[in-house]
């Protein structure tokens, strides 16, 4: 690189021949001085000396080069070691947390992908079966579809209502402004269970919580802070969509459960809203794996045997 800078005239090098000294006017223009002056006057002094005395001896120069290289090496090691220590000092729990979050995210994405694939395959299977059945020319197809719809195995559409439950805002301590740990208006799993059970009782034909269709073996339960529907987490606001007749909607609106939650709205600021819809679409429920129940061969009795352990929900 060519040095196009003029010799340092406008840039006094500290307490040099320019007559300016450190210490004078050390107040307001300290920063300006920092920028103006060379911070290491030794470099300029050394150059000056070399100009006067001629070049150094080769042995001395080699030694100097080696020293510089050694310092650069030391600097590199220092930076690397410090970086590694800073990494190690990062709290272990923080790293574990990040790792777990990543794992959960990737697993959830995979579950979604598999779920979509299962849905697609199920659709294919039922299409094929419908075709095969219709070749036989019977009304089996219609009967099958009705059974499937009531079982939650297919997507259904119809009039119904949406019930929304949501957590009350976290109460704040009026003095400290801190969030109060105990929130009485938080929606619990039993609240969702109550509402869903009331809906079934009132004649609901299909129910979904946050888009998760409920089947015969569906569960709604709490795990830690989260509410799981069929092992999938749902979050506030909890939207319960339900398909059913006009009477079902009337019965639910007039039910004791609805009245109780209206009371919770007044008392704990819990969110509870009911909205009627003329057209709702509910997704199919996840496939129910029957592990112990086996279909009775045709010709057998359809009624539950007396010795059977009561199934049910």
């Amino acid at each position, binding site marked *: *690189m060519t*040095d196009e*800078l003029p010799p*340092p005239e406008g840039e006094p090098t500290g307490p040099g021949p320019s007559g300016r000294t450190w210490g004078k006017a050390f107040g307001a223009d300290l*920063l300006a001085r*920092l*920028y103006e002056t*060379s*911070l*290491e006057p*030794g*470099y*300029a002094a*050394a*150059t000056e000396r*070399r100009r006067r005395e001629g070049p150094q001896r080769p042995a001395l*120069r080699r*030694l*100097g*080069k080696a*020293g*510089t*290289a*050694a*310092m*650069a*090496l*030391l*600097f*590199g*090691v*220092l*930076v*690397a*070691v*410090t*970086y*590694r*220590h*800073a990494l190690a000092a990062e709290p272990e729990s923080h790293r574990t947390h990040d790792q777990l979050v990543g794992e959960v995210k990737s697993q959830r994405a995979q579950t979604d992908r598999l779920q979509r694939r299962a849905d697609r395959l199920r659709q294919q299977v039922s299409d094929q079966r419908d075709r095969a059945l219709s070749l036989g020319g019977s009304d089996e197809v219609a009967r099958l579809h009705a059974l499937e719809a009531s079982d939650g195995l297919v997507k259904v559409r119809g009039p119904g209502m949406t019930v929304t439950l949501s957590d009350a805002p976290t109460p704040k301590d009026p003095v400290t402004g801190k969030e109060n740990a105990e929130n009485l208006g938080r929606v619990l799993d039993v609240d969702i269970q109550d509402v869903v059970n009331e809906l079934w009782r009132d004649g609901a034909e299909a129910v979904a919580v946050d888009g998760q269709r409920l089947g015969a073996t569906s569960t709604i339960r709490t795990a830690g802070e989260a509410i799981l529907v069929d092992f999938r987490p749902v979050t506030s606001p909890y939207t319960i969509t339900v398909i059913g007749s006009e009477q079902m909607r009337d019965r639910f609106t007039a039910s004791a459960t609805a009245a109780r939650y209206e009371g919770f709205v007044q008392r704990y600021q819990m969110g509870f809203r009911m909205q009627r819809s003329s057209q709702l679409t509910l997704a199919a429920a996840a496939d129910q794996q029957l592990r112990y129940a086996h279909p009775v061969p045709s010709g057998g009795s359809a009624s539950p045997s007396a010795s059977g352990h009561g199934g049910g929900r």
Partner: protein
Amino acid sequence: MIALIALAVGVFVGFVLEPTVPTGLQAYLPIAVVAALDAVTGGVRAWLRKEFNDKQFVISFVSNVLVAALIVYLGDKLGVGAQLSTGVVVVLGMRIFANVAAIRQTLFKA
């Protein structure tokens, strides 16, 4: 050029060989790095002005690192370690900033 290669080798050595630092010295590593960075930027600034001098660089590097570590060590002994290291970092940071500003001015004329 040799210095740049040495720097790369140093980083490589630091990462690959994982040299262990005595526990007592670990607290001074960040301060030492900041002090060394000051010496390095000062050296680069001088090099750009064709004023670089090996002896000056070695002395400024070693003394910077040692003095910075010593100040923090003293502060630790006196119970004002955190405040003193903040002070050292502020001063060295200002010097690094000034050096980099001068380097920038030499390189880009702006």
